[in-house]
């Protein structure tokens, strides 16, 4: 079962990457694209039949974008899985808990204060600061009695408060409205290697920490007292996992904007395929999340060509109905 899910995940990533590289707004011959990708390897010089502009489209737009989509998808799915474990709430995702709204406010404040058209290199710092404040607030307000409902409500309140602050800032800086707005909807559009490299270190730290602690998440599901009797430190693991998941989410959000529902769809799909152990859910979520995001981005950049649909719209379009299904099935389980 788990092996099949693993093989399925690897196949999904490979197919998504091939599709993501082969298709786009510009119609290029798949053979030519393949040859140009081989040309990136040291010592390979083959003739692809593509002109320099088309080569630039493949190597400087599509390839970094597919890689960025993989990273963002993996990070958000992993963070979503970790949040669900920490909060013992199947509906927790970075968006619902206010982390993304916090990061959004951080970036909005940063853009409006700097009046910078492009995203400055320090953007992840601003996003991270906002994210940490938001998750801390949510946890303080709703986490102490450990009821999922209180937590979601705290997240809603924190998100609404931060969104109001963000709207206020935007209202006062109308010039930056369009830049912030298109950032908010989720954008892999102006990718390039710059954004990918920006995300990579944060994604790696976050991924390694969460994967190292994945056993602790399983222990947390049995409750704090049992966890302590098993020799683990539930409160400490919880805080480390939260910090790592927030770091990853904040970094992803800062380069890609607010992309919702990925963090909830993917871990739940994986749960259906591979059971309820976080040891399996977390690594598999990274694979399926990467594949899902590459495909969502492919839809976003081809369906309305030459315009693009913001990726946040695509993920929410598929994610929202799925979210409702999950909600229905979990309430049914709770009722029985």
């Amino acid at each position: 079962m788990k092996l099949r899910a693993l093989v399925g995940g690897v196949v999904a990533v490979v197919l998504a990457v091939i599709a993501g590289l082969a298709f786009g707004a510009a119609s290029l011959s798949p053979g030519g694209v393949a040859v140009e990708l081989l040309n990136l390897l040291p010592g390979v010089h083959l003739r692809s039949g593509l002109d320099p502009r088309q080569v630039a489209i493949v190597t400087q737009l599509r390839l970094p974008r597919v890689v960025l989509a993989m990273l963002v998808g993996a990070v958000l799915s992993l963070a979503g899985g970790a949040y669900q474990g920490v909060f013992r709430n199947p509906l927790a995702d970075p968006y619902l808990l206010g982390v993304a709204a916090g990061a959004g406010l951080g970036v909005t404040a940063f853009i409006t204060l700097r009046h910078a058209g492009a995203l400055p290199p320090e953007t992840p710092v601003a996003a991270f600061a906002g994210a940490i404040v938001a998750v801390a607030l949510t946890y303080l307000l709703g986490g102490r009695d450990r009821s999922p409902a209180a937590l979601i409500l705290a997240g809603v309140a924190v998100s609404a408060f931060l969104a109001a602050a963000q709207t206020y800032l935007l209202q006062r800086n109308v010039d930056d409205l369009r830049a912030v707005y298109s950032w908010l909807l989720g954008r892999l559009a102006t990718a390039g290697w710059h954004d990918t490299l920006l995300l990579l270190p944060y994604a790696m730290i976050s991924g390694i920490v969460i994967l190292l602690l994945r056993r602790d998440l399983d222990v947390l599901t049995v409750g704090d007292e049992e966890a302590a009797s098993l020799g683990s430190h539930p409160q400490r693991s919880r805080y480390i996992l939260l910090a790592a998941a927030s770091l990853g989410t904040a970094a992803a959000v800062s380069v890609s904007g607010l992309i919702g529902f990925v963090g909830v769809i993917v871990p739940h799909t994986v749960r259906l395929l591979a059971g309820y152990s976080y040891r399996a859910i977390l690594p598999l979520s990274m694979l399926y999340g990467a594949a899902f995001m590459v495909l969502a981005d492919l839809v976003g950049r081809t369906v309305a060509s030459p315009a693009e649909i913001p990726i946040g719209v695509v993920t929410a379009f598929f994610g929202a109905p799925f979210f409702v299904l999950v909600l229905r099935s979990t309430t049914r389980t709770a009722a029985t």
Partner: protein
Amino acid sequence: MRKRTALGLAIALVLSGCGGQQATPSAPTAQESYAAGGLTLAKRPEKIVSLSPTATETLFAIGAGTQVVAVDDQSNYPAEAPRTDLSGFKPNAEAIAAKQPDLVIIANDIDKIKDQLTTLKIPVYLAAAAKELPEAYRQFTDLGALTGHRKEAEALALKTKDDIGKLVAGVPRHPRTKYYYELDPTLYTVTSKTFVGSLFALFGLNNVADPADADGAKGGYPQLGPEALIDANPDMVFLADSKCCKQSLATVKARPGWAAVAAVRNGQVIALDDDVASRWGPRIVDLVRTIADAVNKVPA
């Protein structure tokens, strides 16, 4: 700038000299009425509030600048315009009324501001964003009629039309030349159906964004994908985000994949003044001249 003030002052002196003989110089006479766009004013407005940067430019260009008491926070031209913190995007009826205006000019009827001010018995003229040149000229003459500068306004409209006609006629046709007009670095752009797009259409240039909003559902302001844009390979790039977002040939060239685009290779990336490019006032001639100069440099 100083010259313009002096000229405006001279015109004002001449006008007041003409009316000096009358007992009540501001009362409407048979020759002089203050009406346009369904709005009739009892007397010449002397305390105008302009919440439209375009209208502000027009008012000063037709010699009505001395009648303006306050302009909005975006009205940065001409420099002598009495800029305040009033906003045209978030208009505040009470703050506007506090200036005791006898005419308010707005570009957008946001938050029912026109109704709010009308309730306070303040006349409002809506000079909405022009969609094509004749509309812009009509706003010149409307503002002239409302403020008692009919002749100057008609002269301005004629001269603008004439200047643009000459600039367009002086440039050879390039029926296959494609351009891209950038509103911001996230690739928001305009189609030929917008006002600024219509100026480029005068030169017979093709807009790479037209297929992105063929049905006009996006109001002529679509956002393009980077891959589609590079694939379209525009011959000219016009940057209306040179001030707001500090874009230039150098920054455009540094974007991934852009170095191979024809406009970048040939150095045909033209930085526009964001303000001039987003308004439909007297300075459209400057914009059209910039376009004409750029088109003249396109190899035949």
